[in-house]
């Protein structure tokens, strides 16, 4: 019964898709520093597919892990699928999160949604 599951710790320690995507065409940023969590998602969308994705996160262990997991779950996926990604799916993929950390997975979902909106608004 550590604070986090093995999965969370793995994604926290070795975040996938970390960094900035220079040629992103869809960027979403949610959260605020006052609350201690900011997630920024960089997506490269082509042919209605997420060709590439990277993230930057200011936040706690589960925020970093949630963003990392979320990027893995949408990378290479058609937008129709990406749109349906829920925080619940992210949480489950991480083998669960402590109750008061669920909002981190919500942020991940929102960051992706925000990026998709950005993409659509620019079309």
């Amino acid at each position, binding site marked *: 019964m550590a604070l986090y599951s093995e999965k969370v710790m793995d994604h926290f320690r070795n975040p996938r898709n970390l960094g900035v995507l220079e040629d992103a065409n869809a960027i979403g940023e949610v959260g605020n520093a006052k609350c201690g969590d900011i997630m920024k998602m960089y997506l490269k969308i082509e042919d209605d597919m997420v060709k590439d994705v990277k993230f930057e996160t*200011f936040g706690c262990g589960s925020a970093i892990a949630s963003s990392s997991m979320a990027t893995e779950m949408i990378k290479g996926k058609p937008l129709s699928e990406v749109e349906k990604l829920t925080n619940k799916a992210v949480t489950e993929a991480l083998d669960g999160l402590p109750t008061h950390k669920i909002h981190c997975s919500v942020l991940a979902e929102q960051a992706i949604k925000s990026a998709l909106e950005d993409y659509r608004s620019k079309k």
Partner: protein
Amino acid sequence: MIYADNAATTKMSDAAIDVMLTHIKENYGNPSSLYEFGQKAKEVLEEARTDVARVINAQPEEILFTSGGSEADNQAILSAAELGRKQGKLHIISTAFEHHAVLHTLEKLKKQGFEITLLDVHEDGLIRPSEVEAAINDNTCLVTVMYANNEIGTIQPIKEIGEICHRKKVLFHTDAVQAIGHVPVDVVAENIDMLSASSHKFHGPKGVGFLYARKGIALTNLIEGGAQERGKRAGTENVPGIAAMATALKEICSKMEKNTAHVKALRDRIIKGLEEIPHSILNGDAQKRLPSNINFCFEGIEGESLLLLLDDKGIQASSGSACTSGSLDPSHVLLAIGRVHDVAHGSLRLSLGEDLSETDADYIIKSVREVVEYLRSFSPVWRDLSSGKIKHLL
């Protein structure tokens, strides 16, 4: 493992463990029993009381054993409030950065009609005695100011505050949970009427503490029942735990000078090393602080991830980040000294043990630097700060 969270709790000393075991095995009798075996336990209890009293220059009958610092804080404050109520004095003065054991007790009293003044702790984390004096009025029944803050380690001008309280004839309580065993405390010289302490903060066992209350101060019971502790705290006495606490306290106090010199040097070394991290700040006055306490804020990162990565490197520390407390707000202590939320989330407290080596200290510096740099490398906040999109606060 480099355990640098001694303000949260400490490891029991070997001497304290030995004493505890001896009494568990050999003196398990009830001190209230009149056969020799029970009286032996009573003797152990009273010896512990004498030892504890001596350390703070009190009389044995002024020491009440409790289950810890929180209980002692609660009982001290409620007792003073009860005495105030009897005189129609319903005003209490405290500070904005007390431990929750004090603040929540004061909130309870507020609901019962008490007026609570929380003094400003200023950016250096130090109370101004003149402001205590100015806050006292004819209705004031208690001033309660912590001896040393548990997060930023600042040591308050207790003697001066006590002097004012005595002159104004107002009871003065200090939560000395972080101070006892770590800095010299003298209740007589410092005009302290009541004082709370907790054993597990000075290498004694958990679940034991004590309340000092100057002779003549009528305490109100928090726990009613048997006539233990002169009728002021019911419950079969935890004799092995109490004796172990006294042992730990004597031990740490006998080494205080040596410990202080050693730990202070390492503290200042680490502070110097961490100050080189750009956009960082030491929280609390650099001089008037516990020898073991280091508390920094680093801009652009969040404390929990910092702690977890330090843990991976074998360093245990703590943070005032909201994420580490389970609440939404960061530490009330950091907010009280004027750190804004964004910055307070990126805080780190290192509370050093007496056995820390210089190598450990250097390893801590190196590790914190690495982790802060790493977390900043993918922090959108840091990016915005670096690019000038938002302004640096530190």
